[in-house]
């Protein structure tokens, strides 16, 4: 795992959470983990393919997810409805999209997959031979942890003319 892939995600998370949920985050201590990861209540998986490839996993607990969705939708949610689930997944999508724009500015183009949403504590997620860099992001409603299982890929993303594929995720 290349640490230069880290900052785009932290920066993107900071910007997006500030804009979407008016939350100011601070980054906790990093750690590197090779062991599989036991899930928290909510997990969102998004893959990157291109000059950076691998998986990005966002994990948070139920309470934080409800608080986050409540802020995004500006209503007081009691549980994580389908709409709220979709909004949390979308938030992860926007953060990853924004990070991929920042990565492409740094010379690593990639395309991101649609998000997959997992609910359930204690499942084991393995990214196999990709080590995970764990980035805890703390804010007033709780902690969101980003797991980066990324490495430099060899597939170049070709964009034609001035159509830059990743642009559609810009916020």
């Amino acid at each position, binding site marked *: 795992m290349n640490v230069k892939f880290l900052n785009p995600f932290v920066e993107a998370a900071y910007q997006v959470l500030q804009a979407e949920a008016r939350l100011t985050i601070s980054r906790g201590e990093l750690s590197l983990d090779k062991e*599989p990861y036991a*899930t928290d209540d909510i997990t969102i*998986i*998004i*893959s*990157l*393919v*291109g000059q950076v*490839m*691998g*998986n990005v*996993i966002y994990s948070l607990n139920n309470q934080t997810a409800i608080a986050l969705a409540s802020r995004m939708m500006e209503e007081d949610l009691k549980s994580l409805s389908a709409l709220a*689930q*979709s909004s949390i*997944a979308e938030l992860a999508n926007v953060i990853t999209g924004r990070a991929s724009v920042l990565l492409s500015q740094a010379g690593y183009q990639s*395309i*991101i*997959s*649609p*998000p*997959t*949403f*997992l*609910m*359930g504590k*204690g*499942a*084991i*997620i*393995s*990214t*196999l*031979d*990709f080590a995970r860099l764990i980035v805890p992001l703390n804010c007033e409603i709780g902690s969101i942890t980003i797991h980066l*299982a990324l490495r430099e890929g060899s*597939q*170049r*993303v*070709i*964009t*034609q003319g001035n*159509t830059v*594929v990743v642009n*559609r995720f810009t916020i």
Partner: protein
Amino acid sequence: MNVKFLNPFVEAASEVLQAECGVQVSRGNLTLHKSALTTDDVTVLISLVGQVQGVVLYGLSEKTGLALVSRVMGQEFPEFDSLAQSGVAELGNVISGQATIRLSKAGYSANISPPTLIHGRGVTISTLDFARVVVPLTTELGEVSVHLALREAPPGSAPSTFVPVMVPDSAKK
């Protein structure tokens, strides 16, 4: 979800399982699900990006997973350790890779992400606004269900050209 994305996966799965594990595969009845999926013991998750986008999930029981990797590696696996996990994930990877070659022959080029393996029963996986076509594949070692949550990329949103993944000569014919 477009059903024409189905056959490449079924063909690839049959071919790969037959070649790697020496098992015959028969396809069960298709179902379309909009609700979230509750996992079996082992789930391999692979994303597709390109002209076809979405997620493919392979669900199987631990017993089936162990039986499959035991065949692939030619040794008995008593427990689902990291090598066994890697073997199952690799099977998913090879099947998806084969399927994308078939999809690209049909005019839909896509690239696949590295696999992620989810180990644990009863987790809910939602593909959100992607409906899932579920294809049960029955083999003598147990059942593997393939969940396809795919759609054609909206025009202009996917790169029209990707430098293609290495396609072996044998697959080009």
